[in-house]
């Protein structure tokens, strides 16, 4: 169990993380979302013990971030948004180095290295130089490094950046597998649709503050109390848009094309049916009506203002 309580970090007058709190249970995959400079990396670096928080703390299975730093380090696997590989060593040597500093017993090291290489599908590359691997393979090697000591908590900062679609898909599968293994995974990313595909919960951070946090469905449900409807007309969509704008239950309208109108609608199925009847009664040539599903990206755009520190 990871409990983050009021983590705060400022750099001079700049408040990079402001009272960040959340709680994650084993097997949970947590998507950490925010604009550049929102405070994601600062929070992750604090959890990785690379930054000393000004206030607040976190506990991982009862171990305190500040008091039990070395024990926490043994229990986390941190993958930053860069690989930081040593180019001049072989893949197995790289993993052996980290296995040694993570105090993996010498008798088990060979087997452990073999296992993590198999997990990230790099078995055939153990004798290759780390610098000669492709970007996708380097990224998988970095992930293997994170897993070498069987951590409880994985901190993955922008793990998918710069990867091709296939590598991203493989990464997604791998993260899901890690979640199934009971690890707590925190993933920060800008690619929101992908995060939605494998995260159980998300936290949205802006200007250092956690502005929304919880299960993906709960957050989406919270935001999508209003329905988003897309209406296509045969013609004169602007006039229809103006008329719709003044209707009851319609919160906002937006002309998205010559013939299409997007509107925020507050109400249930009955109100929606009434609205459709009224449109037709008014003589607007309605061709189709589609209810847009609210996704993580909509939620993000809705709850954030775009302000950065």
């Amino acid at each position: 169990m990871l409990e983050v309580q009021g983590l705060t970090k400022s750099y001079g007058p700049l408040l990079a993380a402001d009272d960040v709190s959340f709680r994650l249970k084993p097997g949970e995959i947590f998507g950490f979302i925010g604009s550049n400079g929102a405070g994601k990396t600062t929070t992750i670096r604090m959890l990785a013990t690379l930054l000393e928080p000004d206030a607040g703390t976190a506990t991982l299975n009862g171990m305190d971030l500040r008091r039990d730093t070395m024990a926490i380090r043994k229990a986390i696997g941190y993958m930053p948004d860069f690989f930081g590989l040593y180019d001049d060593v072989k893949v197995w040597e790289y993993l052996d180095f980290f296995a040694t500093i993570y105090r993996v017993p010498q008798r088990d090291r060979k087997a452990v290295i073999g296992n993590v290489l198999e997990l990230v599908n790099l078995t055939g590359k153990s004798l290759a130089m780390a610098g000669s691997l492709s970007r996708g393979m380097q990224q998988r090697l970095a992930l293997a490094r994170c897993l070498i000591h069987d951590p409880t908590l994985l901190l993955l900062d922008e793990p998918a950046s710069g990867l091709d679609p296939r590598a991203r898909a493989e990464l997604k599968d791998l993260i899901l597998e890690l979640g199934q293994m009971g690890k707590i995974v925190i993933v920060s990313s800008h690619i929101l649709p992908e995060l939605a595909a494998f995260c159980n919960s998300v936290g949205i951070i802006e200007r250092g503050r956690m502005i929304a946090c919880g299960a993906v469905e709960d957050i989406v449900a919270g935001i999508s109390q209003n329905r988003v409807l897309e209406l296509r007309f045969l013609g004169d969509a602007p006039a229809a848009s103006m008329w719709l704008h003044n209707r009851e239950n319609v919160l906002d309208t937006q002309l998205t094309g010559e013939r299409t109108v997007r509107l925020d609608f507050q109400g249930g199925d009955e109100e929606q049916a009434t609205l459709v009847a009224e449109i037709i009664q008014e003589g607007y040539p309605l061709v189709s009506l589609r209810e847009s599903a609210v996704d993580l990206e909509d939620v993000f755009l809705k709850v954030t203002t775009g302000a950065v520190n």
Partner: protein
Amino acid sequence: MRAVTDWMSEQWRTYVGNAGSVRDLRSNMRGWNTPVILFCYLGFMVLAAGVFYLGISSSAGGKVSISRIQADLTGFAYMVLGMTELLVGLIAPALVCSSIVGEYQRRSIDLVFSSPVGTKYFLIGKLLSSYRYVVLLIFMILPVLSVGVVLGGITMRWVAETLFMASMHGLLYTAVALPIACTSAKIVPAAAYSLIACIAIALQPLILMVPSLAAGASSFLASMTPFMALPSQGTTTLLFGTAMPNWLLGSLAILLLVRVFTVGAGSALSQAGSADTMSLRIHSLFLVALVTVLVSLSLGASIPFAPSGGSAGGASGHAIFFFIVCCYLYVSLPFVSVWSYASDRKSYPNGLFLARLALRGTPASGLPFLISLVLTATLGTFAMRWFGDLSTLFLDAPYVFASWAFVLLGWSFGWMGSLLGGNQGVSGSRRLFMAFTVVFFTVPWVVLGWISSVLRDSSVATLWNPLTFIGSEPQVAMAKGAGMLLAATVIGLFAEIGRKSQAQSMESRYVGV
């Protein structure tokens, strides 16, 4: 019992089974570069030996007495060792710098520090990997020296003692580069600064030895510098009535210095406010106390103590030593006294003087920590003399005061340099600190020296340089100290006013956006 075994296993892990040193050595030895370099090095040594042999045989028409050969072989051994020391001085800091700065550049340092290792483990790994390489270089000259042992001229003991001291010098040069590498962003400048620091550290025992040599006594300090290591062979220093070999005392002093530099490097690496930083700062204070007490004791033991009218004007050996300690502390100022909004965020200024933060490592802790260090050094150097004649202590007071003022002036340069150059990060602040130091201490001195040579009046040359106080009369030292303290106060105040104004501007820019 458990704690002891844990401690021992931790030491074993750090010093013997250090994964970082294995990895670095593996990288250093990989590929063709290292064998080629070592082959060229050995080839050069053999070539030098051949040229030397030809020189001997041709000069005497092929008939040379064995005593002549033995004398020449001793000279040859000196030459080979000199070349090796030079090579070690060049290679050791470069290896450390490329290794540590390389970690910064590829950002792998974050990966290491998110694993369960501390700064000590990391730095010892870097130290040992370079040291192993240096030892390899030193011991490669064994075949060349063996000729001297076989034919006479040098003894096995001489070779063993000399190679051991050469390896200790290599260890010292490696350690000197550690703090510099930990605060540099580029390999070449780091290596260049380290080389300068190595030269300075090789020269400083010579300065400190002046009173000792003037008194006709040997000093362990000689074994600490390659310039004097060979003549110091077989000499001893009388400590508490026991003749201790100088190579042993020199090695112990080097190990202490290595510890000081490692702690300095650790402080540069650790996070502001972390337990690591506090522990390292406490270590620094302890080490400064230990070094000053030990050297102070040995100074008293090895030379007839001269409280005034010593070899360097009015200052005693202890005062000269204290001044040298202050020079060392001055070198640490670019890391203790600078701040910047545009750099690593632990350098953000959080005040001028916050004594309660002295051990935390932020800019506001710079001045209190510095004062703690200088105070510790003062007590360490002079405390033991309280048991002797107190009146001699007061004779050194003006020099101690001037040394304090010198360090505080340096601190004010750092604070002002941060105000003017901080927008380029702490490296900009440090560059300005260096510029102020050079301009204040060197340029007027050079200019006045030139003027005095034109006017043929030597008194003009000594008008400016405040650092000549150490060789001056007590009143002059007092006056120069007062001048430096005044300058430090004025510069420090201006810089602080500027910093506050800059802080207000930053507040209005960020807060409430």
